[in-house]
């Protein structure tokens, strides 16, 4: 029996959506172990989300309909992002669904709405987080577009499925060597897009270091659950994209045998585990940069992305 698009689509969407809290749990665990702590169990985020769903919601009096609309949009765009990004397998979606520029725009749309939610609270924390977030989005955009377009240039295909298929087919060592600067720039962008070190501190209680946390301060109960889940899902989506390019192994394709799907899901879990290890280690070993030095970070990301693209052009001649 061969794998149909629908089976694949359902299986990989389910895998990513279920795995998302696990990725966050693993990152927390890795960070705890770096501090010689035992840390919470990796299933802790599921309990946290379940508990939040059982709570009441309190909303600030000066907010408008936008505040209440934000969690839905953020979660919806993130879900779209997560299901179109290649995870356990490729080929389930029409090519247009995972177009690089569409994926970039969906990620940005989520960020913009999150920032609107922060601005609608009328609280200085939310305002500050929103303005920082929008600054980061504006500065990250050039590097993000160049990285994605360079990957598309390598693959000769502008959709993520095609890009992953290309890297899966190419000899690993050669393609990694060729794409090294681009992938490094991709990692820098992924860290920025997901509010991780050195751009943002996801575990902070101090407004000085907050971006993402400051925007969600006024959300509670199920709204907060939606936003926390969206942030976990976003990390997982970017993680599976990154890992599927860096380690393009064990990826199921529509049309192959059903057993490939099991292989695909299993390797996805391994890849995400490794990604969580990577993120957790980076967060334990790096220090956060000052916000007013962010232009240096993004200039670096841009220059690496630019160099990667020029290297790619030179390589083909």
């Amino acid at each position: 029996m061969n794998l149909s698009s629908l089976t694949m689509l359902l299986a990989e969407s389910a895998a990513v959506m279920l795995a998302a809290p696990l990725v966050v749990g693993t990152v927390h665990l890795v960070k705890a172990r770096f501090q010689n702590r035992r840390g919470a169990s990796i299933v802790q985020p599921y309990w946290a989300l379940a508990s939040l769903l059982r709570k009441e919601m309190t909303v600030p009096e000066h907010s408008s309909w936008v505040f209440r609309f934000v969690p839905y949009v953020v979660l919806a765009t993130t879900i779209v992002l997560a299901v179109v990004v290649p995870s356990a397998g490729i080929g389930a979606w029409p090519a247009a669904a995972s177009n690089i520029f569409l994926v970039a725009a969906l990620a940005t749309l989520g960020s913009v709405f999150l920032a609107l939610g922060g601005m609608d609270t009328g609280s200085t924390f939310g305002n500050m987080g929103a303005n920082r977030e929008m600054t980061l989005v504006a500065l990250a955009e050039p590097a993000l577009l160049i990285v994605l377009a360079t990957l598309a240039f390598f693959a000769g295909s502008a959709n993520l499925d095609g890009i992953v298929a290309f890297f899966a087919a190419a000899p690993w060592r050669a393609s990694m060597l060729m794409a090294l600067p681009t992938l490094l720039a991709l990692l820098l962008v992924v860290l920025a897009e997901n509010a991780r070190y050195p751009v943002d501190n996801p575990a902070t209680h101090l407004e000085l270091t907050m971006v993402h946390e400051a925007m969600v301060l006024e959300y509670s109960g199920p709204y907060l659950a939606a936003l926390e889940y969206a942030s976990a899902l976003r990390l997982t989506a970017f993680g599976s994209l990154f890992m599927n390019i860096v380690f393009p192994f064990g990826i199921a394709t529509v049309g192959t045998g059903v057993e490939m799907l099991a292989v695909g899901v299993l390797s996805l879990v391994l890849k995400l585990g490794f990604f969580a290890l990577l993120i957790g280690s980076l967060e334990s070993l790096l220090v956060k940069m000052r916000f007013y030095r962010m232009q240096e970070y993004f200039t670096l990301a841009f220059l690496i992305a630019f160099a990667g693209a020029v290297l790619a052009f030179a390589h083909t001649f």
Partner: protein
Amino acid sequence: MIASLVTISFAFLAAGALLAFVPSRTDATHRVTYGAFAFAGVAALFAAAWSLAAPQTLGALPMTPAFFFGIIGAGTLLASIYAVGYLPLYRDTYALPWLAAAFAVFIIGMEAVVLAPSVLLFLVSWEVMSVAAYFLVIADSSESSLHAGLVYLIMTQIGFAAIASGLLLLADGAPFATWPMVAQTASHLSPPELAIAFVLLLIGFGSKAGLVPFHQWLPHAHPQAPSHASALLSGVMLKVALFGFLVSLSFFPSIPLPLAALVIALGLLSAFFGALHAAVEDDLKRLLAWSSIENMGLIFSALGVVLAVAAMPSSPLSAAVAAGAAVFVVLHTLNHFLFKSGLFFAAGTIAAKTHTRDLDALGGLAARWPFFSGVVLALSLSAAALPPLGTFFGEWVYLQSLALGFAAPMPLAVVALVMLGTIGLVGGLSIFAFSKLFSTAFLGRARSARAENPGTLSPSLIIPPLVGAVALMGSSLLAFPLLSSIGAASARSIFSDTTIAPGAAMNAWLVSGLLVAALGIVFLGRRALVSARGVRVTGTWDCGAPLSPRMEQTATGFAAPIRFFFRAIVLARKEFIVEPVVASNPWIAERQLLWSVASFWERFFYQPISALVLRAARTMRSLQSGVVQLYLLFMLVALILVLVIAL
């Protein structure tokens, strides 16, 4: 039939302008006048639509004029509907009959520019349009309007001189030459003459379209006009400038690569400066004007790509890139008209109801006007080129074709790379600018008493921006698939993918469908998961010290990081002045924060030029001795020189 629709359009504009002077105690005259204008707009829109749908009909307009004529018609219709509810709020500020007359003449000028068959008619209509626009800019006869109007008038006359000389150069000095005759004479010109004409036309039309470095007037002039006119100035008149440039391009037998590169460079520079200044601007309408510079810059850069590809040996790849860029030009012309006029209408409404254009003094409007804020949110998302609205799809095609350009031979690939990076930054900055616009005007708490109680909105104020927002949705679902399939091998359904090159597929319906489906799932999921514990409204978390609206982030504060990161370009200056009140205690002091941003081009382009001119004038002044004999000597020298040159 089409010809009579066009005639009706002109006739109703003229009739409306005359009717405006009929005295009446109620709003009847005003309503009838703008009703006539709206009807003129409908007639123009119909004429354009008919010409586009059935190009074989007798009297049908050619494709390009029809497209721009349609935009003028739609703009007139929306602006007239808007003016019905908007202008009565300003009865004391404006002389309504004269304003209506200037408005009508302005539109007549624009329509005539698009329809003009010959050089002279084109130039005359252009001048009619420009001068009428001047009267719209100075309509409230305030000090700042007069100043902005003067700058506008100077720039537009320089532009007019450049256009007139460029066109006459192409027409070999024949003012009555029709367009085919101009093309005929232009084909005999030498390459240097053509290059001079091209640069002149680029300066002329570019100065009207707000291209850097001729953009200085635009952010001052457009916001000063009443908002229904601002919408036309930014949404439509800039497109007429684009139209003029497109028409003149058709006369050139070929355009060399360096000139195409010049168009690209000017376009990108404009886009960057427009977006950056929009990101740091505090004035609601001026932010929109800066964003117009950005968008016209993007359109011109894409036009430059089309020209550059035409100047190079053709290949399937370059054809795909050019096709993508051309689709972007058309789509963005339409989309920019829709969202920019919609946003100017919205800005006018906000300014009329809260009596301020300063984003720092607004805030909290979403709670007062929920429906209207939804409309503005859609328009802002569209201006930021985010899905699922029309603008995103235009930019998508453009970005996608630039990404295809990576596969071009080496130097070109790097050009495509630089363009993609620049447009990425421009896109990021415009997202910043419009999230700032929406969130500081509509979200949080009101930062002034006027914004606290802005009153209610009449339908005439809501419908035009609403139409813009709905049309932008339509533009993504219909215009994008239709336009991008023009020239495709087989007729396709609008539901299927648009493939501008192998591997680069786009589908508007899929994107919208996915977003709607995901939103639906999330809403359903909420119903299923969340127990009915309910929502409790409480105060905002204030850490114990009660919050006031003065603690909120203003637009100035919002843009602080961007001002800091780009301080070398926006020439941001911040100074903290501390003056001790008591000499013995340094802590008791008066503190004052001064900050400013300035125009890079004004300081490094215009001021050096004006300093040079002034210095030259000062040197010349020493000749003015007042001695009659010396003047006679000058005359003699001049006479001899003329004779020498003439012989």
